[in-house]
């Protein structure tokens, strides 16, 4: 009895640590940069708004990926979906206007999510391999339809709502982030929907035995992940006034690192939306801080890789102990 008690106690402490980890590291990194960069504009409201705006597509992809991870899937195709949805949106925009362009881009997300999900269920192959394959296919399609050229966007309404606009002085990219994050938080934590996602990720056998439609839950999660990436594509297109097949190319690593460090398990069953958001802002802050400190993009990439390894190591350690 005594041992059972002390085990439980230890575990709780460990869990507390893991869930709070993102807060600690966020403030440690913040403090570090604040000290090193005290003579720059790093510690200003403007700079932070900038970080949040620049990170908006990453944040939204991270929120979407959290759903896929919750059911125990990984989605490697999100970076490629960003490029394809941005291109589809940009190509449709000139001729058909904003509603059709947005619908078309998001439809890219829905289709990719369904294809990923159906291939995984039908072929019984891991999501890692299937989405690695679809990533290649989608990238190829994006290169093909754009002829490796950028598609410029000159529609001022589009660039307002998906890029540089401000409503009551608040950047729209910040609003997008807050709205999407809010909906995702409620869906995952307050609704039956999220409860079933986590049940399927935590124990597919138990979920099945209790009559949950496991296949449909997994499909939903992958569609959400890819639609979020499609929305991220629109936000890139809006901010950069155009789409290019290279969009989102380097984001996969950043997004996975952001979600992992935020406390979402890479093996399903545990997910944190707040963690994903803080994780993506942390990645944005690190990029921003490294740029202001005079480091190159190469070095930033190394930093992202190291962070992913640290985050995943903590997650796996906990899995063994828990």
């Amino acid at each position, binding site marked *: 009895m005594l041992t*059972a008690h002390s085990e*439980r106690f230890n*575990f709780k402490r460990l869990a507390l640590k893991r869930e709070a980890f993102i807060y600690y590291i966020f403030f440690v990194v913040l403090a570090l940069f604040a000290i090193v960069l005290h003579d720059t504009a790093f510690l200003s409201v403007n700079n932070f708004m900038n970080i949040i705006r620049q990170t908006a597509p990453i944040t939204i992809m991270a929120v979407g990926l959290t759903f896929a991870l919750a059911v125990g899937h990984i989605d490697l195709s999100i970076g490629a979906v960003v490029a394809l949805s941005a291109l589809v949106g940009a190509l449709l925009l000139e001729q058909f206007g904003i509603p059709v362009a947005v619908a078309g881009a998001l439809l890219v997300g829905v289709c990719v999510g369904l294809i990923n999900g159906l291939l995984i269920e039908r072929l019984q192959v891991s999501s890692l391999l299937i989405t690695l394959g679809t990533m290649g296919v989608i990238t190829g399609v994006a290169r093909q339809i754009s002829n490796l050229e950028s598609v410029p966007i000159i529609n001022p309404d589009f660039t307002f709502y998906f890029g540089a606009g401000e409503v009551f002085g608040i950047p729209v990219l910040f609003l997008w982030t807050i709205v999407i994050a809010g909906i995702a938080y409620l869906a995952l934590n*307050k*609704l*039956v*929907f999220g*409860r*079933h996602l*986590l*049940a399927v990720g*935590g*124990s597919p*056998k*138990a*979920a099945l*035995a*209790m*009559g*949950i439609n496991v296949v449909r839950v997994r499909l939903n999660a992958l569609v959400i992940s890819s639609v979020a990436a499609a929305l991220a594509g629109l936000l890139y297109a809006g901010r950069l006034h155009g789409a290019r097949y290279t969009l989102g190319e380097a984001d996969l690593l950043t997004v996975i690192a952001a979600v992992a460090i935020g406390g979402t398990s890479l093996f399903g*069953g*545990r997910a944190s939306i707040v963690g994903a958001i803080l994780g993506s802002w942390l990645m944005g802050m690190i990029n921003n801080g490294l740029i202001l400190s005079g480091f190159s993009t190469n070095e930033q990439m190394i930093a992202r890789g190291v962070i992913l390894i640290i985050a995943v190591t903590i997650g796996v350690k906990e899995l063994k102990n*828990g």
Partner: protein
Amino acid sequence: MVRTALDQVALEVKHISKSFGGVQALRDVSFTINKGEVVGLLGDNGAGKSTLVRCISGIHAPDSGQILVNGQEVNINSPLDARASGIETVFQDLAMVPEFNITENLFLNREIRHKNPILAWFGWLDTKAMEHRGRKAINRLNSRIPSYKEKIHNLSGGQRQAVAIARAVNWGADIVIMDEPTAALGVEQSAQVNELINVISGQGVAVLLISHNMQHVVETCDRAVVLYQGTSAADVAVKDVSKEQLVGLITGVNQSAA
């Protein structure tokens, strides 16, 4: 144990047969369980115990035969049908999500939604109502559970079993099927599970207990149905037979005792 007041048939299985390909797993098996009765289902490996249980809990459809619940014939084609007819199965792996707490597992896929119809349409969870009802379900079993917010993987095997049984009973099951509930448990925890079985049968629930453990069967069951090579070899009151006779029935050595 005198339960004459409750002597009404809860579950009646009539002439069930089931074969897989050329192998006849069940041949014309019939038995009944009364309300509040605990019936042990015994048999060697391959005698047809699991097939019979799977037929009753809706995982397999029998080739022929009938299943009656409270005197009414029911059509069981899926686990959901079985549940709708008042039959709950406590599986050996308990069908629990380890990362979920007790309440979340009790209401898995039967979540209580918010009273507000609009929020309910979105699937908004009524956490308070679930905690309240979950507490009642656990209290009904007089079992010692640390906290309703404790995650399942922090519980002992016996406590997990208690939660699984509470879940079955909480859903108004008239009949609870338990697959080897004490197989992975120590002596003390097995005793706790036996106590739970007594509590729920005292509340009028019919229990079908699949077990290899003779001691367990003798301690908890009123009757024993013995399967031998797909047929029912015996249906005996446990107090009328010795453990040795039961073993004889299971191995097919001593069929005259039936």
